[in-house]
């Protein structure tokens, strides 16, 4: 456990005070398109090479990802518009500087902005505390400048981070971190000082990124997403659950896949008691209504001892 146990106190989902979403919704659903840019010539990082296939540039990989911003983003947008979905963009903030058309489309729709680094070819691994502090300031300022909104959360750049990440995120005024795929509900993370920070559910297994690299394509992905939703919806009668959609336009909005994505949205929208919302709203609602109760419960669980079982 190590690092996980340092940041996350144990609370089994069956023991927690129930989560109640607005309007008695069973499942809070949030759609997170990862809008990214991968650089033609990324700077070297000793911890991870974005294009290990060849000395840079790797134009095949560059082109495959660039398709997302030139074509697939716009195809995804149509589907989201058709279903009235306000997305939580997991954003490489460099996109705002480079691609004004995308910025404009997101601003017009009042999306929420979850930080996801500057480019998907820049990592937090190896960052000093000062570098990481400057990184948050820069990312937040960039989003504010282009959109007028202040981001509340982060999915680590290419899911990288340091041991200080939750502390420094909280220091920068962020309230949620999406890297932790350890639960179906938001849960408090331990951070320094008296700040508050939570994780909210995200997924790498239902994520179209890793998924479509495997033995799975649109039809199977849709089947998994529907199975996920159906189970959470059933269990959500007892305590509110969260279903994330972590998608990448250059993958899910390929011609062969976009209809499967839409079929999942249609499936979900056929149900009542669903809160179709954003990561920011889930996080804020949880902090306002459930966080204190959750912290009290964690303190209680920390005192749990298995007294009657100890033989010696």
């Amino acid at each position, binding site marked *: *456990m*190590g*690092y*996980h*146990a340092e940041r*996350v106190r*144990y*609370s*089994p*989902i*069956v*023991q927690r005070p129930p989560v109640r979403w607005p309007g008695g919704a069973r499942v809070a659903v949030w759609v997170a398109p990862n809008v990214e840019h991968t650089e033609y010539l990324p700077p070297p990082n000793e*911890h*991870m090479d974005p294009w290990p296939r060849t000395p840079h540039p790797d134009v095949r990989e560059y082109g495959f990802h660039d398709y997302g911003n030139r074509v697939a983003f716009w195809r995804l947008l149509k589907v989201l518009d058709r279903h009235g979905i306000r997305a939580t963009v997991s954003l490489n903030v460099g996109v705002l500087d480079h691609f004004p058309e995308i910025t404009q489309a997101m601003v017009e729709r009042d999306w929420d902005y979850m930080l996801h680094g500057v480019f998907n070819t820049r990592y937090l*691994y190896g960052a000093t505390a000062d570098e990481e502090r400057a990184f948050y300031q820069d990312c937040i300022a960039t989003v504010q400048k282009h959109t007028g909104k202040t981001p509340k959360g982060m999915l*680590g750049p290419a*899911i*990288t*981070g*340091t*041991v200080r990440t939750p502390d420094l995120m909280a220091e920068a005024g962020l309230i949620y971190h999406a*890297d*932790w*795929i*350890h*639960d*179906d509900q938001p849960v408090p993370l331990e951070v320094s000082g008296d700040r508050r920070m939570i994780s909210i559910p995200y997924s*790498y*297994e*239902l994520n179209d990124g*890793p998924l479509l690299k*495997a*033995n*799975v394509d649109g039809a*199977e992905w849709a*089947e*998994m*997403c529907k*199975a*996920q939703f*159906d*189970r*959470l919806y059933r*269990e959500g009668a007892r305590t509110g659950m969260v279903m994330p959609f972590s998608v990448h336009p250059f993958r899910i909005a390929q011609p062969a896949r976009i209809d499967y994505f839409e079929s999942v949205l249609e499936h979900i929208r056929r149900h009542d008691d669903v809160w179709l919302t954003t990561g920011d709203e889930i996080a804020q609602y949880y902090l306002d209504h459930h966080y204190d109760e959750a912290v009290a419960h964690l303190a209680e*669980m920390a005192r*749990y*001892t*298995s007294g*009657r*079982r*100890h*033989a*010696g």
Partner: protein
Amino acid sequence: MDHGLYEWSVLPDRPRLVWPDEARLAVGVVVQLASADEDVTPGLRAASLLGGLGKRPHPDVPLLAHRAYGHRVGVFRLLDALEQYGVPATVAMDVATATRYPFLVDHVLDRGATIVAAGRSAVDLVSEQAAEEVERAYIADTLDALERLTGTRPRGWYGPEYSESTRTPRLLAEAGVGYTLNWVNDDQPYRMTDGLVALPPTYELDDANALLQRKVTISTYGRMLTDSFDVLYRESSDSGRLYLLHLRPWITGQPFRIGQVERALAHVAAHREVWRASTDDMVQAFLQPA
């Protein structure tokens, strides 16, 4: 034979295996509750662990968090499914879990689970490189700790990631362990040379193997579970067979996968002459047929 760990035997030539109440098939599920520690036990190798986004630099949040999901959420789905379909739970628990999750120890015992020893932590790989005294101490420390933390000395053993040295079966027998889940080479239990019983899970149905390594789809996995049962059930008309699943809460306890396990268990429960049992009870029945 290139080793002396057990006497060679081919299944069709064996005496008839008789389960309690003339059941054809013994059905069990091993739920693995193991923790992905970042530090390996001194003297052992570090296992290369599945989960998250593959091996990442420290802090590897995706991998640690993915596995923690099992202890926080997934295990309750699996245990509920077992309870619903009347399969006594067998929990392969490591010392790290028993130490850090006293709630789970009580929870699984309250549900009547049998606990099998699963080493100190998932990251420990027992191998030929471990000195004999290191491995002997590892086994003893694991059993002692689990006895202290759960109230009972485990009868069964699972080496993290099915790991063993050439000495393991002997050292386990010397330590008083009755059976091992490490050997996946049969559809029946069998005796090993040192007195240990091998109780083989079906490796092809192991969720890490099928779903993460081979990446079969959820519906294919569900079909594998029932197809496998059907063939074993058919074959068990002449001699008893074993259908033993090995599942991890952070894999099959995910919302999109649990339904396939439930469907398989419902399929099992719809058959007569099936004995749903813990691994302890299976080994007991194998050694002392009624």
